[in-house]
């Protein structure tokens, strides 16, 4: 089978600039995280170098799902929750297209939760963007499936009585092979994971931590600024030691079944003792531990590509099977198909 590598990002040369992917005037609230993400997506696409005509951006419904309207590519802003299912048909029917699927936390994980897990399980080659602001914005302020327990909103005036999804856990539980995280305001971090998602052949989930200035202001405050990230985040890179802090003075080590924070140079700890990040490990145990850090547990929030493991994609397998059966079966047209039946002749 012909292997199509639709990405030219490794060459570092692209005939496109961000403006080639831009269209219209975004209508999100001033200060909304979606503005930051959109700008990074335009830049990432330019750097990736795939033509707008070969790109489809498919969203569901919600504030963030307006995004395709600001893209000069092909695209659809569809119906609530179904973006992953629609993107699946799009990619399987036309595997030459590069397909980005954009959803918010409600669109992707509540009404569209079923499609999210199955797109991951099947490993459809989609770049799946999850813009997570932990709130329903378009319907004006109800809790979402990523809002923390006890969250007070218009539909939970006394606080929610349910636990949230943690997107990485859901992705891994569905046998996802790629998970990355970035903060919307962190353009280099966002562009880096978007490019990695495109490089990854298969379903690539990118969780974007994004603020809703109107209904959930400050939800990602601890990492929303550069200074915040220096204190409260850890950038993970495959093959690099897991260090963080303003001067990379802290690191992560394994302890028993868990992780622990150590200070390098203290208690005899050296850089060589620090855990090296392995995004390519098939076993996702440690990757999941990294992904779940930072939920008020004293650990930093992990940013970057947390898991990136090669696996057969559904769309490649569909194409390969078609080619295989074509070679094996003697009939390739409708007329030939008819002849495979028990036929009798009436004179």
């Amino acid at each position, binding site marked *: 089978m012909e292997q199509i590598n639709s990405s030219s990002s490794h060459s570092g040369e692209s005939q496109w600039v961000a403006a080639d992917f831009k269209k219209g005037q975004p209508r999100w609230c001033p200060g909304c995280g979606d503005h930051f993400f959109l700008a990074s997506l335009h830049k990432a696409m330019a750097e990736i170098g795939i033509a707008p005509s070969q790109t489809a951006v498919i969203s569901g419904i919600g504030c963030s799902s307006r995004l395709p309207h600001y893209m000069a590519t092909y695209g659809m802003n569809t119906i609530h929750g179904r973006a992953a299912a629609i993107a699946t048909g799009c990619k399987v*029917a036309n595997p030459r297209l590069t397909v980005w699927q954009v959803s918010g936390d409600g669109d992707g994980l509540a009404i569209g939760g079923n499609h999210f897990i199955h797109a991951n399980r099947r490993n459809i080659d989609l770049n799946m963007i999850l813009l997570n602001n932990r709130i329903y914005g378009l319907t004006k302020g109800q809790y979402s499936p990523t809002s923390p327990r006890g969250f007070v909103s218009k539909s939970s005036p006394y606080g929610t009585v349910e636990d949230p999804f943690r997107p990485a856990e859901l992705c891994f539980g569905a046998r996802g092979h790629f998970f990355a995280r970035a903060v919307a305001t962190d353009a280099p971090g966002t562009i880096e994971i978007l490019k990695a998602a495109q490089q990854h052949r298969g379903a690539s989930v990118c969780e974007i931590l994004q603020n809703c200035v109107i209904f959930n202001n400050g939800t990602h405050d601890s990492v929303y600024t550069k200074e915040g990230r220096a204190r409260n985040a850890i950038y993970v890179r495959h093959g690099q030691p897991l260090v963080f802090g303003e001067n990379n003075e802290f690191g992560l080590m394994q302890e028993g079944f868990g992780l622990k924070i150590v200070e390098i140079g203290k208690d005899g700890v050296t850089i060589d003792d620090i855990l090296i990040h392995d995004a390519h490990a098939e076993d996702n145990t440690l990757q999941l531990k990294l992904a779940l850090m930072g939920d008020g547990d004293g650990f930093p929030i992990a940013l970057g590509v947390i898991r990136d493991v090669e696996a057969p994609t559904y769309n490649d397998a569909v194409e390969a099977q078609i080619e295989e059966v074509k070679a094996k079966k003697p009939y390739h*047209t409708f007329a030939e198909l*008819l002849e495979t039946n*028990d036929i009798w002749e009436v004179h």
Partner: protein
Amino acid sequence: MADSIEIKELDQVVVRFSGDSGDGMQLAGNIFSTVSATVGNSISTFPDYPADIRAPQGSLTGVSGFQVHIGASQVFTPGDQCDVLVAMNAAALKTQYRYAKPNATIIIDTDSFGPKDLEKAQFKTEDYLGEMGIDPDRVIACPLTTMVKDCLADSGMDVKSILKCRNMFALGLVCWLFSRDLDVAYNFLREKFAKKPAIAEANIRVIQAGYDYGHNTHSSAANVYRIETKHKVPGRYMDITGNKATAYGFIAAAEKAGLKLYLGSYPITPATDVLHELSKHKSLGVTTVQCEDEIAGCASAVGASFAGALGVTSTSGPGICLKSEAMNLAVIMELPLVVLDVQRGGPATGLPTKSEQTDLLQVLFGRNGESPMPVMAAASPTDCFDAAYQACKIALEHMTPVVLLTDAFVANGSAAFKLPDLNEYPAINPPYVPEELRGKWTPYMRAENGTRYWAVPGREGFEHILGGLEKDDKTGAISTNPENHDLMTRKRQAKIDAIPVPDLEVLGDKDDAELLIVGFGGTFGHLHAAMDELRAEGKKVALAHFRYINPLPKNTAEVLMKYPKVIVAEQNMGQLAAWLRMKVDGFVPLKFNQVKGQPFIVNELVNAIKKNLQ
């Protein structure tokens, strides 16, 4: 005593094979219909499966039937009641006898009428024939199981495998009753069991034994039948079920249009065979995705259409409920999509294996907003092919979702199918954006007939965004402008209204009928047979059968208002009648409605219509 046999020459005959789910009645029935079709008889079949997954052996709920109607001239239905009933056990006799004509020949396996069998079938005495009021003279009672065991005693097969051949004994006996040539059956079996020649030969020995038994003991049967073929349409034929014909129609249309066929589906009775059939044909490039749910089946088909394929989704009524939202997305995005609804009994889970026409108003109206959508209904198993082809043609050429209604009856029923020649089918030309519109094109620009142009992703210079939000007619951008929404609503409606469909054909006494029978979809055969019977009695009746329901044929009002009386007969509470009354001012029809999950019975139709003729 061969001279005492009475040979009846008949125009048509109905045979019903019945037995336990595991008795192979479907196979016996299939072989018999193939054998008959091969000599040029017209055939129509109806498998009647139990809804239970696996009912206890010998129980009343585990009985499976297969009815074959063969005729010298064209037959339109599998027949109301049978001339020959094969009952492989006591439960089959108990439940299936009501499908037998009063003078029908009954074939039973006396080995399956022991005390335990009778108890399971809820007979009260050992005189089961007396209990059911069956005249013993009409019964061919044979120790069928014993004879099959004797026949294969030296075969080296185990008892279980030997017992699996019982159906072939019954088949052999029926073939004798109808003077059928067994060679066709032999070929069928040799092909079916090509990899197990020993099984094929064992089955063949048993068929021969059944045939010989009939021949040697014919004094116990009242009649031998002969069905000659009267009006042969020369050509090459195959046996086809409605579901298979539908799948073939989709394949043919995609090939004609030069597009990839994409099916997004989720298993659901009685539509699943379409998924099975299409999944087999990867050598034709057919792509099938068994999705996580009905919603994704439809949604992914919309995605496939956007990407430039022919998107199809297949389901039954409960699935339509779930697909409605994505069907509506295809309405507003004006993308091609074919939605197959193989109707079954409802509401909710209803009668999953049984047939109804109760989804008509659902597919016409069951969506939010103004949501015009073409609706078609296939009239017979073989018509499923043409209907599926036409549904694809309309979807692709008019950039719209199209609903194709079939039902459990036509989907599972089969008939002889004259192999179609695709060269004789009309071309399918989707309205791709013409090159001269480069630089000027916007997504909702329309061709002369009101159809939006199709720009397939991958084509440079035509990048655009579609979506579920209302769009500006001129720019294609999101618009909440009231005038624009009104305009777009009208344009979507006008586009559907302008789809050309063939005129409604009137059959029978079209000039001077006293009463017009009206129906749609899978009841065509029964309505036609009822009309034939009434006309044979000298009544002046005609039949108008709808295949195109939205838009309606242009001559609908003219036809409906022409006759003194019109009766709309349908397997629902009057849905087509309601639709026609909405569309034709002053139209007040008589109605015949049955919602039993079973095909109409021609006799009942005839009687109901007669009442209205007096």
